[in-house]
């Protein structure tokens, strides 16, 4: 009887451990994308909404002007995982009304940064 009780307890505890590990793994694997629009910082600076077409965005990015990501009222500077600025990559999504970015966000000196792993049209 004691043996049976012991085995039962061990199994119960093991089940708890396995399920908690599985849960935490699931939350890491399926991060939600940040939804927003691709905008021109230049246009926002001069008082516009930042809305641009893909061609305009590409032209601006080529000239070194920042193409950024706006989600709500927050402006994000998007970087690739290798540390390079993803303005040119973002420009390709400028025609999409909503863009989703999966990645790690940071706020440094008041500047919001996303290190993007996935950029997708939504």
């Amino acid at each position, binding site marked *: 009887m004691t043996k049976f009780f012991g085995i039962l307890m061990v199994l119960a*505890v093991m089940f708890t451990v396995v399920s908690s590990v599985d849960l935490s793994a699931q939350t890491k694997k399926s991060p939600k994308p940040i939804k927003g629009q691709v905008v021109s910082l230049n246009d926002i600076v001069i008082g516009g909404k930042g809305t641009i077409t893909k061609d305009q965005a590409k032209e601006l990015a080529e000239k070194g002007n920042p193409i950024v990501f706006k989600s709500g009222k927050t402006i994000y500077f998007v970087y690739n995982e290798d540390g390079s600025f993803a303005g040119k990559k973002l420009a390709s999504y400028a025609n999409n009304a909503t863009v989703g970015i999966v990645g790690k966000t940071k*706020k440094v000196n008041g500047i919001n940064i996303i290190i993007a792993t996935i950029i997708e049209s939504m």
Partner: protein
Amino acid sequence: MYKYLILILLSLAITINSCDNKNPEEVKKEQEVNQEATDNFDALVEDGDSQSDTAATETVTTANSDTVKAEPDASSSSSAVDYSKKPLEGEIIVISDLMTGNHRKLTKDLAKQLVAKGEILAVKSANEIYFVYNADGSLASKNLASYANNSKVMMIGKAKVVDGLNVFIVTLMEGK
């Protein structure tokens, strides 16, 4: 009986350990978010008298003429801080360095190379980052790159906050 008790204790220890694993990650995240306080630059402290003089000459000025520094407050996005008399002084930085935490010592050549690759240069003054724009609305990264050999750059113009970002519309730039 003791065998099973030991097994149960061992399992409990594993459970507690797996729960604790989350905390260091959260702590790490917070550390990354708060890494902004790594560098201390000389604060741009300007006396109130000079700012008052400046404020008197301009039509668009901040409501509080005693403060000179641009306040990075989203609510004050419409206000502009005038630097037409006393320049804003700061260090040229690369925005991507903020992300990596590796603040490179910039030279003119390196800065020009980075700008050519599409990197954004900005000015850091009193722990605030300013995106520098020309009066025509174009980003002034190329102009900034020319002054990257200087330890600091001084700029005449106007500072304002746009969507939480500090923007400096430069009319005159000089190396220090």
